[in-house]
């Protein structure tokens, strides 16, 4: 059961800046636990953001991204009240989607 993302979107002039805090362990597959056993890799593979249903950001991630990632991007357009949806899928097939309105 994954935890919610924190999404903030702010329109300024002709562009909107989106800031997302993602809750995820992002295990690199390089760490060993107390017993010396390798902790298996567990990471977000794809992350996407849509603005009123249109994709404005999509990324493929690997094990180099650290725990609880912070993502910031901006796109042209957007106004207060528009809907931003962010979703991710990890290598366990676990999925999450959260939304926020542009301020």
């Amino acid at each position, binding site marked *: 059961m994954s*935890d*919610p993302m924190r999404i903030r979107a702010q329109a300024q002039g002709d562009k909107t800046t989106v800031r997302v*805090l993602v*809750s995820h362990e992002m295990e690199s597959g390089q760490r060993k636990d107390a017993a010396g056993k390798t902790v298996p890799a567990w990471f977000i593979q794809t992350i996407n953001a849509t603005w009123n249903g249109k994709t404005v950001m999509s990324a493929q991630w690997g094990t180099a991204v650290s*725990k*609880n990632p912070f993502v*910031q991007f901006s796109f042209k357009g957007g106004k207060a009240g528009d809907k931003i949806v962010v979703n991710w899928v990890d290598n366990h097939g676990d999925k999450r989607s959260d939304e926020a309105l542009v301020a």
Partner: protein
Amino acid sequence: MKSSLYGPAALAALTALALFPLSAAAQKSTAEGIAEYRAMLADGNPAELYEAKGELIWKQARGPKNASLEKCDLGKGPGVVKGTFVELPRFFADTRRVQDLESRLLTCMEQLQGFNAADIAKTSFGTGEQKTIESLVAYISGESRGMSFNLPQAHAQEKLMYEVGKKVFYLRGGPYDFSCASCHGEDNKRVRLQDLPNLTKEPGASTGFGAWPAYRVSSGDLWSMQRRLNDCYRQQRFPFPGYASDATIALGVYMGVNSKGGASTAPALKR
């Protein structure tokens, strides 16, 4: 040919950096660098994730009694969260004890939800119901963000716990003869490159006490005040302070009263 991402100018700048003599100026810039790093991260402090989760947990029916914590009295009446953090620890009439946030949460979890407080107190940090408490303290402290510390000191028990806390703060023991004051009794001290707030008065007291719970980037998790104090005692080479034990609560009263007027920044961000 694809042009390099780093033009000649950037390369020159990098080289200059490498040749920069390490001096007292470098010392200063290390501290500045740490401050800059914190400022960059502050925009996306993962403590917020714990705050969001904590709010959900506060309102969620849980435990053997399948009840939420919404009737929990943190000192300003059942269900009131905002403003409670900057007035804890305080005396509670129902338990006849001075309690900090975490010992009070144990009381609420036991009375309202039917959890066993003693079992939670024995649970290792970062596991089981201790993980729940991480999120709860992030949420509750976040609701008082920016408010000034103003601990009540009217009750005789509150006064007594302040004085006991002061004694405990200055208590030197263990093989290193350390006390809390060894690190936090004076202004402008550092352990390695870590600035140490002076917890005996303002502004240091609220800088230190008022930052926990905090998200620790180095360990990638949220530390409650109890966990912070526990690790202080580990490094002091003391025996193990019980979770939500009176010594830790007394220290909370001492630091909290000393923070009077200072603003709470919890849940803050630490290296």
